[in-house]
């Protein structure tokens, strides 16, 4: 029986931090993609956006977010973030050595329809105030997803990104 849940690629940020991480030449042989993210930003402050681009483009992206903003339940549209927000990750002002825990699922990433995706995660911190939540996203393009680029205003060393393929074959 063909395997259902398969590792495609894994990326760990080395010393010196990086602006972004890209999975390119994504095989087109799966049904859905699952991307697990354990990441931290080197930017100042307690948290920063983790963002995404499809096939090298940050255009044609819309989303809605449900989550905790500080100590309050809120719901935002993507316009409130100003970037292709997935979830928040801890930044340099957060509890030391603490990385955000997030996951994104991209169903039917090779189809000729627009691409929906679902994400959840946040900047868990030893603090009463955090930003965590769930995102409903849409990439309004019919092209198959062949690459994914994750950024976080400089991703810290030890940040990891693990991409899996799920097959319905």
């Amino acid at each position, binding site marked *: *029986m*063909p*395997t*259902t*849940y*398969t*590792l495609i690629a*894994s990326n760990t940020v080395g010393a010196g931090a990086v602006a972004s991480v890209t999975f390119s030449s994504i095989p087109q042989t799966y*049904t*859905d993609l699952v991307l*697990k993210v354990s990441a931290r930003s080197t930017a100042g402050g307690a948290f920063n956006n983790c963002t995404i681009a499809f096939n090298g483009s940050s255009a044609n992206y*819309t*989303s*809605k977010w*449900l*989550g905790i903003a500080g*100590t309050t*339940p*809120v*719901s935002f*549209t993507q316009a409130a973030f100003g970037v292709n927000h997935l979830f928040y990750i801890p930044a340099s002002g957060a*509890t*030391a*050595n*603490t*990385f955000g*825990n*997030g*996951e994104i*699922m991209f*169903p*039917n990433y090779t*189809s000729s*329809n*627009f691409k*929906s*995706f*679902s994400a*959840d*995660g*946040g900047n*868990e*911190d*030893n*603090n009463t*105030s*955090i930003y*965590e*939540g*769930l*995102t*409903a*996203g849409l990439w309004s393009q019919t092209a198959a997803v062949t690459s994914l680029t994750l950024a976080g205003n400089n991703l810290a*060393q*030890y940040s*990891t990104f*693990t991409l899996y393929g*799920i097959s*319905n*074959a």
Partner: protein
Amino acid sequence: MPYIYKMSNAGGMSTVTRYTDMLAGNSVFNPSSFDSISTVVVGAGSAASITFSSIPQTYKHLQIRLFAKNSDGNAFGSVAMSINGGAGEARHDIYGTGSANGVSGTGGSFIVYIGGNAQFGGGIVDILDYTDTNKTKVSRGLSGVDNNGSGLSAFVSGLETTQTAISSLTFASTSTNLSQYSHFALYGIKGQKMAAGTTYEKISSTTLGSASGSVTFSSIPATYTDLVLVINATMAVNADVTLIFNGDTANNYSSTYMKGNGTSVGSSRFSGYPKIYLDTLNTGTGIVQYNVNIMNYANSITRKTVISKYSGAEKGVETVAGLWAATASITSMTITGDGANFTAGSTFNLYGIAAA
């Protein structure tokens, strides 16, 4: 290079095919990355806690899937998760109770919401990079319970500042003992190619060739622990998407929701209904997805719990804790667009997850 020859029975071993690689015409074998590690089921007499010990250090991430309740008589209960015997430093929740929504932030252990009375709640918890000694341990989980008149749906995260690799996890009831039949399953997710497992498997798949008002999966095998239904669909008009089991259309379903539409946060409930609503935001005309977990679906002792998440950029986000008030094993499910058709190209994929 040397050739590889394959002889076949057809033609009385006289058929010989020549290949230039060791696959000899076979497909490339990709080992599964999702493995069952261990399972604990609470027996008769209940238990204050359960523990996974000596957790193998060979995976990259852990997932814990649980189906549990205690007996404190409340609308919901909880279990506190301890990493390597530690107490945890911080936890943050966003939740909806059907009549209210809220946020909590506190010190102490990460928790998973479970049943507190008659019904079993469900939870899916992810811990990434659990062996990485450069990182503190952060947990993330979706959980909830519905009691047909009360309940809770929640998204929780937690922090334990230990950087030691996780070798044990303990889930302890925060009030009365965990009830018999409470089920905790630990899975490992690989970060490199390793020997195969068959834990996460496709059961069935439907892609609509033309518009249809419903999709049914029947003859669902009873050989897994949980079912995962992934829907990626569009509709021509706004409509809710609903779910029934085993053809039951009586008022045996209920659900508790937490939702955000980009402007406001809310929570609501349906009780004594003829179906589980997988979203109450209306699907909209954009493409949307549902990730539906049906926990411990094959047992014939407990009622059935659904933990689901709806994501639609046009309409918003919604988490659902649902209940089918029947003890029968689930052998079929029907997904319906309530008063509207799913358009051609909509996909419905059903997977089974088998605990050890």
